């Protein structure tokens, strides 16, 4: 299957500042890809280049089979900017009707789109009176116009409440099931984890990791942490049996690599009655993310 989006060795500099360094990514139809990275990592820059809004220095880029920013590419790509803004004097309905006309669709579909993002009630109010989350929903509504083959969403859930976020990802699931590719950026690791097929991590303009969460977990090879609480009076014996443990308060802390996990667990369970409780902590999403995403000087 031909990819909806393909970037090869894409490089972009702002003056002396390198925003993207030789980034290569492909996104297949129906795939949901999350773009993560620290502030200033180059996420928005990458998206604007994909949309043809800003030029790039070198590399190769194909969007829906066309060059970015061409009429052909624009017909198939929907965009939600980082801070979606609209003319405050227009109502949500008028704004969406306008966007529908620009895409050659019937303006009468506007109300339906607004209802899909939960703005049916406020549709005839001016956008100037909307809350941040409501403006974000207007932005989402306009990405649903037509049948885009690629949705480029820059921090789509910023400003949305938890329930709206869930609804939003359900909306995306439906679109992806219909074959649309989705590239979204986010700072919320936990929501991205369950809702996307693949994660890309940008750091200082470099693509430092790419894969499913399980892949990233494996690649990060972060240690697993055990918290062992010995029974009353058994502390000395347990410390003797587990010399590498670090004692603090009434508990001992140990860590080991993924492949050593069962061996360590066996050693602890050999202590039998002497152990009151044991707590196993796999690396958190933040740990994995932090392993890859290192800002200069961090």
């Amino acid at each position: 299957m031909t990819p909806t989006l393909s970037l090869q060795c894409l490089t972009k500099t702002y003056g002396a500042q390198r925003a993207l360094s030789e980034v290569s990514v492909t996104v297949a139809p129906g795939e949901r890809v999350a773009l993560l990275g620290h502030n200033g990592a180059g996420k928005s820059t990458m998206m604007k280049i994909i949309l043809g809004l800003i030029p790039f220095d070198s590399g190769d880029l194909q969007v829906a089979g066309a060059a970015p920013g061409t009429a052909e590419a624009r017909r198939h790509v929907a965009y939600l900017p980082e801070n979606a803004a609209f003319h405050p004097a227009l109502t949500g309905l008028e704004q969406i009707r306008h966007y529908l006309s620009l895409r050659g669709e019937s303006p009468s579909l506007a109300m339906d789109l607004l209802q899909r993002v939960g703005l049916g009630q406020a549709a005839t109010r001016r956008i100037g009176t909307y809350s941040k989350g409501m403006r974000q929903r207007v932005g989402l509504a306009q990405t649903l116009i037509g049948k885009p083959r690629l949705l480029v969403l820059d921090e789509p859930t910023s400003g949305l409440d938890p329930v709206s976020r869930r609804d939003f990802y359900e909306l995306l699931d439906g679109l992806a099931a219909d074959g649309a590719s989705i590239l979204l950026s986010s700072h919320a690791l936990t929501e991205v984890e369950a809702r996307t097929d693949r994660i890309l991590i940008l750091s200082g303009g470099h693509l430092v990791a790419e894969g499913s969460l399980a892949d990233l977990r494996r690649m990060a090879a972060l240690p697993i942490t055990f918290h062992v609480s010995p029974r009353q009076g058994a502390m000395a014996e347990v410390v003797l049996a587990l010399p590498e443990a670090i004692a603090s308060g009434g508990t001992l802390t140990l860590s080991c690599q993924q492949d050593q996990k069962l061996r360590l667990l066996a050693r602890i369970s050999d202590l039998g009655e002497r152990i009151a409780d044991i707590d196993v902590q796999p690396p958190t999403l933040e740990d994995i993310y932090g392993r890859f995403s290192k800002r200069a000087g961090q």
Partner: protein
Amino acid sequence: MTRITATAETEFRIALRNRWVAMSIAMMALFALVLSAAGSSAVGTIGADRLSVVVASLTSLAVYLVPLVALLMSFDAIAGEVERGTLPLLLTYPASRPELLLGKLLAHLAILTLAVAIGYGIAAVAALAVDADAVAGLSSLWRLMWSSVLLGATFLGIGYAISALARRSSGAAGLAIGLWLGLIVLYDLGLLAAIIADNGGYFTTKVFPAALLANPADAFRLYNLAASQATSAAAGVSGAANTIPVWASLTSILLWPIAAFAIAIAAFRKVTP
């Protein structure tokens, strides 16, 4: 095509909400009324019908007012989108930049036409009401009307170009005011000073006519005054202007809107959101 009309419709709605429509119409109507009232004292001494006299004073008014209204409507057109942050999203839509600009132009030109038609219409009705001979002046009023719309189109285009170049509303506003002062007020003063210094030499005979034709506002004034000789008595700039043929000023006022729009498109293409 739907992309252009949709943009025009939305822009018109925004202008309506921002009171731009009401303000432009009120401004033109008010000045037309004042001129009609003031014009009544001049009748008889010149020997022209009442409407022709009013048209002459409307012409010198339109030279100032129409470019001003056009610049006020257009200076924010692109800079405003940049500042609000609405431009990046707009540019990812299938509409091309010339289409977007044409949509804005249509809306703003419609408002300007409305304002001009209402303002001049009031003046015509006021003149016809008291002077039956005023019918003779209707043709020059009609000429003034469509040439005013062309003048407006020129300054709308110039306004868009300024807006695209400045990228900030405040900067665009300053540039627009500066340009208005320069082209409408200082330009003529400069020419006048040069003519006095030149005292009938090369400048007066060769450079001056070309300089008048090169300025859209001067060409507009020339065309309207030259086309109706009866009113030239009421005009300020005449004399040397009489030597310029009507076709030359007509060509200038027809070409300027196209040139201004082309400049606006070129400037808009340079904007990276």
